[in-house]
Every structure is written in C-alpha cells, then in structure tokens.
C-alpha cells in the first residue's frame, strides 16, 4: 500500500531550541496512526508543520507522492489535511451548519445559500448517524456534541488526512466510544487518521500503528498489534522500570478533617454528603457533567450552594468566597489551567505568590523578596523545569504549569487540597512526578480530594472513592474495592453503558 502522507527528514529549529530532528514518518490511508510522547517531545510541532502552521527548517512533506509547499493552513486544508484541535474551535454563536461550512460556505455570487448549506450539513450528520439539529446554536450543545460537530466539519470537507490532537480529554467513556465509531468510519473511507494521545488504552483500541517520539526525535515505530503498553511507555519516557508509576504505597490515615453534609445546588447537585480524613487521597469519580466540579466549586466558595453544612476540624465553617476558604487553608487546583488556573502572561513567581500576597504583605506593599524566595523554593522542591522564576508562564509545558498551580497552593500553606483533573493533558513522566508530589503532601499532614475521570488514575492512587452520577453520590468504594467495573457500574446512567 502506498502511503498518502509522507514526512521526510523534517527538522524544525526555533531560536535556541531544536524542536524536531530528522523526523520521517509514513501515514497510510485507512490507518489510524498514533503519535505519542511526553509533552515537549515535538508532537505539536510536527502536527503544526503538517498543517502548514509552521514551516519546517529542513525536510519535505509529500501528499500522494507530490511535494507539498503550502503557504498557509488554509492551503493545507484545501488539499485535504484537517486538524481537530485539542481545544474546540467551534463558534458558539453560529449554528451547527454554519460551523461546519465556516470558510467554505455554499454561495451564489455574494448571496449565501443557507438552504444548500443546511441540506449538505444534514446529509453529513446523517451519514455519521448523528442526531444533531443543523439549525441548533453550538453554544446549546454539550462538549461531546461539539466535538462531533468538529468531526462533521472535517468529514464535510472530505479531508484525506485527519489529525486529532488529544480529542478525548473532555469526553466520558460513552462519548469516547461514539468518537471511536466515527474514527472507524473514517478509516473505512480510506482516510489517514493521525491520533495524538496520552492515553494508552485508546491507542490500543483505535490505532493500528504508533510512532513514539522523545525530545524531538522518532524513537520507534510499531504496529499496535505487536506491542504492549509497558513497551510503549518505557520507550516514551526512556526508562524500563514502570512498577513505581503510580508509586502507591501505604501511608498513615488519621482522623476526619473535613465533612460536608447535604450539599445541594439547584438542578446540578443533590444532597451530597462525604467526609475526608487526614492524610487521605480521596477520589471523586464520575462522568463529565456528574456534578463533581460544581460540588467542589461550591465548597470552595467560588459559587453559591443552596443548602449544605461543612465542618473543618469539627467546627462548622462557611466559605462565602474563595478568600474565606484560602484563609482556612483550603486550596483548589481547577481543571482548566488556561481558563481558571494561571495568569498565563505573567511570570511564574507572580502566579505562585498570588493567593498569599495579602498574608505576607507589609502595610499593603507586596513582599517581593518572600515571593521570590518561595518561588525558588518550590521550583526546586517540585522540580519545575524553567530557566528562571521570572519566566512567562505560558511558555512552559503543561506538566510544569500544573506544578506551578500546585506550588501556588502549597505556598499558601494549604492543608486540604481539592484537585480537579490534576493530570489532564500532561505527559506520562509529569503524571508520575505529580503523583509523587501528592503523596509527599499527604504524608506531611495534608489531605487531598481528587476529581478524576481517568479510571487507571483513580484506581492507581486513591485511598477511597466517591462515585457521582447525575448530581448525587452513587457509591463509596474503598481502595480494595476499586476496579473498572465497580466504578463504571456506579457512574453510568443506563444499564446498557454499564455492560459496555
């Protein structure tokens, strides 16, 4: 079989950094080809070169044997190379049909042909077996439906090469299966799928071939049928010992530190009660939309709860605003680094110091020396890889950004940490490091509530787990009761999904 897209000897040099070195990969039609590697391995750079966002310093790209010389992403798209970004690029105030044909609207002269557009859009959606109204505004769709619109957009353009950049990071199990069905359809239509992921399970479910990258180089290319998870992860991180990946080990668990009773939020959360013990890593599992994040936001005082009582160290507390929670030494690492976690355009030190500024100020003057010292301290302790603490935060990798958010709450002397999807979008190595930091924290007297949608993670590290379903707690599991089936059974809405 002839490859439809060939990347030949690509190198990319940014000032001061060599992002890609002599990269050659062949992509075949009808095949899903996974690109895996730690953050910073060069996956994004490679994708951007294929999609003509960047131009390669050296090397060539061939589409059907013809050399590509695209000057803009638009030209690449017209030639049939489409990218589905990690962050959705749907315009919320346009309809499904308008989004699908954005930039290539059917028209007669200057008059848009909406009827044609909607007809075509419906045809595409029908062919994908999707029940989405083409006239619906995208802001009214949920995350999974929006993702499907993104895919429909690509299908509508008859793309020959489709690149998916971590498409499942905000989808639930069931939605992922729906996505995989679409990918299988694309494969059947002889589309070459390039699939960037951090999740091993997905890789083996949907991909035929995998290229492992490390430090801008291709380390290995394998058929997934002839490989296994251990082998791939080992070559990704460049070491063979994986037994201590989650690093689970016994650690003392003490008295109750925090208790929530009968927490309700209108239409979102109903009568949630749970407790957290000292030194415990308490997991919260559930599908996206089960109300876990809403519960934690209300506890932290970021949003209002309609009813509910909280006890910290046995005393009743109310956090009417985040400042009150912070004063009681509660910290909240949110699920979305960019939107709610970091001041991306500010230096690292300003992010780390942010919640603690008032506590360390003298007469309202910022204590810059304290801020620098604490930032340097946590840069060392958490091994944040940065040239300096005054580096602008947006320039760091996801794993390092996540460490900065953690550092910010450690610097605020937090005793109870709420972590919402703490390892989302960070690479294997960074995850492992992050788990070790979580253990450090609980062994030094802290307690953690961790929301996670990744089952291996919940099973791998939580001491006890609450499962939420449609705004209610649907189960409590001890560490020895944790398994994929016990979690799914309590999280899923229908019995059909439970057996899937």
């Amino acid at each position, binding site marked *: 079989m002839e490859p439809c897209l060939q990347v030949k000897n690509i190198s990319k040099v940014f*000032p001061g950094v060599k992002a890609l070195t002599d990269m050659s990969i062949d992509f075949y039609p009808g095949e899903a080809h996974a690109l895996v590697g730690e953050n910073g391995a060069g996956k994004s750079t490679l994708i951007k070169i294929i999609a003509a966002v960047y131009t390669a310093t050296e090397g060539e790209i061939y589409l059907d044997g013809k050399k590509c010389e695209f000057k803009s992403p638009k030209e690449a798209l017209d030639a049939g190379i489409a990218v589905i970004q990690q962050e959705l690029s749907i315009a919320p105030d346009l309809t499904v049909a308008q989004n699908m044909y954005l930039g290539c609207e059917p028209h007669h002269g200057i008059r848009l042909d909406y009827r044609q557009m909607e007809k075509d859009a419906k045809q595409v959606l029908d062919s994908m077996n999707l029940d989405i109204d083409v006239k619906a505004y995208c802001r009214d769709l949920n995350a999974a439906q929006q993702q499907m619109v993104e895919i429909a957009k690509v299908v509508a353009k008859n793309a020959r090469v489709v690149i998916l950049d971590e498409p499942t990071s905000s989808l639930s199990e069931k939605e992922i299966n729906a996505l995989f069905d679409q990918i299988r359809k694309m494969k059947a239509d002889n589309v070459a799928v390039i699939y960037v992921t951090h999740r091993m399970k997905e890789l083996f479910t949907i991909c035929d071939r995998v290229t492992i990258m490390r430090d801008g180089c291709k380390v290995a290319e394998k058929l997934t049928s002839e490989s296994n998870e251990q082998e791939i992860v080992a070559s990704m991180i460049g070491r063979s010992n994986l037994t201590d990946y989650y690093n689970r080990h016994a650690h003392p668990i003490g008295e109750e530190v925090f208790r929530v009773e009968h927490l309700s939020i209108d239409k979102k959360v109903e009568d949630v009660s749970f407790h957290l013990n000292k030194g415990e890593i308490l997991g919260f599992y559930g599908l996206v939309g089960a109300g876990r994040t809403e519960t934690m936001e209300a506890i*932290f005082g*970021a949003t209002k709860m309609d009813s509910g009582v909280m006890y910290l160290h046995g005393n009743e507390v109310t956090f009417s*605003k*985040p*400042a009150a*929670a*912070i*004063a009681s030494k509660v910290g*909240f690492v*949110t699920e979305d680094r960019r*939107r*709610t*976690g*970091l*001041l*991306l*355009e*500010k230096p690292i030190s*300003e992010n780390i110091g*942010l*919640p603690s*500024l*008032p506590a360390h*100020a003298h007469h*309202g*003057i*910022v204590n810059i020396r304290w801020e620098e010292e604490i930032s340097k301290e946590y840069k060392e302790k958490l091994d944040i890889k940065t040239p300096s603490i005054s580096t602008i935060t947006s320039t760091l990798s996801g794993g390092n950004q996540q460490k900065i958010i953690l550092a*910010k709450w450690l610097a605020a002397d937090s005793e109870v940490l709420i972590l919402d999807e703490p390892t989302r979008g960070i690479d294997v190595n960074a995850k492992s490091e992050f788990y070790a930091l979580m253990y450090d924290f609980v062994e030094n007297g802290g307690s953690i509530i961790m929301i996670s949608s990744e089952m291996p993670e919940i099973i791998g590290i939580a001491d006890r787990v609450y499962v939420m379903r449609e705004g209610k707690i649907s189960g409590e599991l001890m560490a020895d009761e944790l398994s994929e089936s016990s979690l799914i059974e309590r999280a899923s809405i229908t019995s059909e999904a439970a057996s899937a």
Partner: protein
Amino acid sequence: MNNKSKFGSFVSKNMILVFLVVLCAVFGILNHNFFSSVNLINLLQQMCVNALLASGLSFAIILGGIDIAVGSEMAVAGVLAALGCKWWHNNVHELTYMAALLILLLVAVICGLVMGLVIGYLIAFHDLLPMICTLAFQTIFRGLAYIISGGGPVTGLPTTFALLGAKRLFVVPGFPNGLLPTSVIFTVIVVLAMHLLLTKTVFGRHVFAAGSNRNVAHLAGINVRKVTVLCHILCAVTACCAGVVTASKLQNGQPNIGESYEMYAIASCVLGGTSLTGGRGSVARAMFGVAVIAVINNGLNLLNVNAYWQKVVIGAIIILAVVLDMWQQRKEKAA
C-alpha cells in the same frame, strides 16, 4: 557586547521613548524655540492634565475596563471647586493660598470618590459594560456640570484660585513669573503615587491579576468586585484632580472643559503599551505617551500648523506609534 545588547533590548522594549526622542529632535531642528527653557516649561505644564487623566485611567484599562467619562468628571470637579472657593471667599474668609489648596484638593477627592463609586458599583455589581456605563455617565456628568454652574462659567474668583493651575514657584532672573509651575509639582506627586500603587502594592498586583484573568483572580481569593470599584474611584479622583487644575488655570469654573480629553488619555495609555484587553500596562510608560502627544501639539503650534491639521496629525501619529509597537512585539514573540 553585553552592554550593547542590553541597550538594544532596552530600546526595543521602549520604542515609544525612542519615538519621543526622535520627535523632539525633529521639532528642535525645525524650530530653535522648541528647546528654549520657556517652551520646555510650557510643555511640562501642558502635559499635566493629560498626565493626571492617564495615570488613573491606566487602572481602569489594566483591569480590562475603560472610563470614557473622565472629561465630564473633570468639568463637574472644576465647577464645584470654583463654586466652593467663591463661596468661601464671599462668606467665610478671604481665600488664602492654603484655603484654596484645601478646597481644591477636597473637592477633587470627594467628587472623584462619589462619581467613581457610582460608576464602579454599577460595573462591578450589576455587570454593566464599562464602555456603555461610562458612555452614559459622560453625558450625565456633563449635564450636571452645566446644571451646577447655571449654564455658564463660574467667574469672579480671587487670583489665589490660580494656585494649582497657573502659579509658578521660584522666581529667578529671566523668569519673572517663576520657574516651576505648581501644577507640575502636583502632577508629579499624584502620578508617582499612582505608579507606586500599581507596581508595589498588593492592590496593584490584584489589578493586574483581575485584568489578565478574572476567574483565576477570583479563585485566588481576590475580591474582584472591590478591586473594580477601587479602580474606578482612582480613575475618577485623578480625573477630578485634572478638573480642578484646569479650572484653576482658567481662573474660573467652566462646565465645558475636558471634552474629548478621554481620547487623548486613552491614546496616551495605548502609546505607553497598556493593553486595552487588560492585564498589561504601566503608569510610567503611559507618561511617555502623554509626552509624545504634548510634544506633537506643542511642536506643531511652534510651526504654526493650523489646529485642525494638528488633530489629523496626532491621530495619524498615534496609529504609526501603535503599529510600530505591535511590530516590535511580534518580533519579540518570534524571537
């Protein structure tokens, strides 16, 4: 080598300063009066009002908002200051310099406090868009200024009223009116205070945090609403300071002062690199913007360019400067 690259990076980070120097050089060559001490003192004095406006407006803009009512706020404060001084002079005691200073400052602070509080409250607690909210107050405050003044200027003030606007200190040979305008001293004090407030205090840091990402700021325990109200109060107080300085300079309280001054103040902030989307900016650099606009005005005056053309030239130069700045930033990002 190292020194040279340091100098290079300083220049590239402060293009607006380079631009200012070039402008001065051009005007200096075209008209030898430009660098005369009389003209330079004039120039400083001409900068005061815009400098005051831009210093407070920086807070509102860095927060991600705006206040386009500053010109009208000026008028209210100017009229009230004139009325206050006149009343004191006629009913209490002859207006001394000390009394004039106290009344002017008191009016500026109280007036700014009230107007800023109203604007800030509506924006912070009722989620009004800053642009729309202050657009409304632009006409409300302008109307109030006319109502309070009775439609025309408040006149008949003693010469001591000119303390903050027209008076100059240090009479030396060659300068019978004095060397240093009090308005310049006053402006320097206010601007310096605003600069320190923004760069050194927790409050200042919170302004940047809320301006670059409200959610992150809120979750870090920052009371974003309080910060918003405070920023608008600061903005209005500095605008009122500009108002009393202007009234004092004119020796009467005119309800029509400050019209379209908000545009010059916004332009100054932008020239100084303040981002209209919030999160980025500096009071000190806004002063370079103030200087650029003042120099252009002053230089064109010296060259006898007609006032209408001056408006056109100023607008064009603002665009040029901003384009240069964006070009520079893009180069930095690429590097």
